[in-house]
């Protein structure tokens, strides 16, 4: 036990402020963002991640936004196991034909506002896999998408930025 405590204290807090560019963006969306998360999402934004056919690269980076460097929970962002509790779907792609029905069902099970963020080049437009007998291409071929986060895979910062952009656009979506 003493070793665990020592390691924890020795490591300290490694969570970083975001780089100036991203920080600035967050400041710009600042009040609206805070208002949105506090008012509409009751201080916390709950995300359900859906892999609709990705190669697992994007999943690794989505994991990374949960690590202590990026620590997405500090913004009130956390991941849930069920779409029923989710405010947002974070979908990686391309949409495999064999996953199409599961993706539609997940979308239907999500309560409004159902924000959808398409992650990765494949999630945006099918990427290297394109459209074929087995791949339907980007996420927006199957469900409506609010924000696109390109990259192969997108960096954790790009992902955080994408999530915050979607939250920022939320009040418009409600209208």
């Amino acid at each position, binding site marked *: 036990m003493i070793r665990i405590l020592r390691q924890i204290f020795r490591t300290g807090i490694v969570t970083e402020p975001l780089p100036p560019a991203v920080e600035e963006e967050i400041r710009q969306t600042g009040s609206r963002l805070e208002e949105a998360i506090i008012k509409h999402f009751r201080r916390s934004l709950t995300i359900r991640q859906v892999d609709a056919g990705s190669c697992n690269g994007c999943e690794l980076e989505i994991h990374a936004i949960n690590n202590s460097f990026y620590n997405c929970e500090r913004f009130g962002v956390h991941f849930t196991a069920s779409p029923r509790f989710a405010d947002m779907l974070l979908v990686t792609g391309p949409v495999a034909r064999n996953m199409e029905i599961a993706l539609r069902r997940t979308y239907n099970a999500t309560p409004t506002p159902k924000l959808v963020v398409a992650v990765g080049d494949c999630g945006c437009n099918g990427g290297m896999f*394109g459209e074929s007998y087995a791949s339907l291409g980007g996420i927006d071929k199957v469900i409506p998408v609010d924000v696109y986060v390109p990259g192969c895979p997108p960096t954790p910062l790009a992902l955080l930025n994408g999530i915050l952009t979607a939250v920022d656009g939320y009040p418009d979506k409600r209208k």
Partner: protein
Amino acid sequence: MSMLAKALTAAFGEELMLDTRQLPSTVVCCTLPREKFAEAAKILKKAYALLAAEWAVDETPFGRGFAVCACFRWGREYLIVKSELSADDPSFPSLTKKFLPAYRFERQMQSLMGVTPMGHPDMRPWIKFEDWPQDAYPLRKSFDATKSMPRVAGDYQWARAEGEGVYEIPVGPVHAGIIEPGHFRFQAVGEMIVNLEERLGYVHKGTEKRFEALSWKDGAKLAGRVSGDTTVAHSIAYSMAVESMTGCRVPERAHWLRAIFLERERIANHLGDIGAICNDAAFAFMLYQCSRLRELVLRMNNRLFGHRFIMDKVFPGGVGVDIDNSGRSDMQAELEALSSDFEKLVVIYDENASLEDRVRETGILKPEQARELCVVGIVARASGMNLDCRIFNPFPPYDQYDRIELDVPVKITGDVHARTYVRVEEVRESIRIIRYILENLPEGPIVIAPGIPESDTSGFAAVEGWRGEIIYWLQAGPAGEINRCMVRDPSSLNWLGLEQAIPGNIVPDFPLCNKSFNQSYSGHDL
């Protein structure tokens, strides 16, 4: 001549033909009439061979029919047995009764290529879902991959356990965590699992077919996306298969840089896994500590090589990024810090009794089962099999056995702890290997022109990724294009191991066992 080839020659004599179009020449390809396909497997089984892969090829562009290939491995030897099938009767004798992993390979061949394994005990389609048109065989040349397929009605038949108190738990395809999709069906009595049936194929993206529409150069990009966590190892395997066909001799420095990338990928993934396994045993401390170390490794990758996973930096002919002296000393300092922090965590892992209680004697894959299932990589090494392509099929610098002295950790308990500890010891080895490489990195160019493969030749490569042996088999078509690209991710074999390790465990231990295997869905479904 190799042991396996000798055994076959002794048995078949004149009937056996050596196929010289198979490259590199160290990989022997024997052609036999299709009636002898299963007999050859029987003889090879007696010679202690393991089945590494089985696949079908559409050779109609050459004016032939179909062909079935099976790749066997014994120690350092790889041997391919190939039989040609006529286009109007594409059936062949099944290997499933001799080699268990053929069970899924053959279901997949039947589903995607439409060649029939005669005598196969379970002909339910695999990867091809019940809502595909019955006559859709995407790997056939006559199939138009650009068109979407209509959905038809149909049901998958599940294995069922019956009796008082038996109930069923369906899980997936969309799982609770941030992981890939797949379906697991448990039959359980109380908390104890009686049977687990996997159903995979949800992330089938037509990867193998997609290769056929790409140039040899772009193929490396797609290979890097077969399984995103193993991008380096897949692109090395693809590149080496192409290089074996063109006879391209990659500069020494490029090989050594590939080895750095490969070992860094291994470290990053093992760190992630060790943390995640402990987290599934409710020891979140390790997850956060290990993800911190993992993040530091990825950031160094990004700084030195321009990508966090070093994606798209390996292609036929060499590598796309070099390391300079300051990068070298940065990496040495990083490894120093990583090693010291990692060892502290290992002590904590070792001393935690409640963690030990969860990981020991959980999810056991017995050595004899592991051998029957021909598993590879971490899973094999945790169950007493001494397999590692870095030793058995090395590229430089791994071929300098006496200088690099690679230590392959082998455990015999086959439980979650063994699989975790194989990873722990591999992280240590990888750190040591990278240090050795950094100190001895040869000078010279890092890329040369790869050349173009000749028509109707095939190439083969096996590389030890972090999960285990990855195999690529490529064939050049009549115009020198990619006619077929067979990808065998370690997951194709190891998923069967998970199915066998689960019965007898309690339901809440499944995530823990699954994490300790951590197989790829994308690499399996293709």
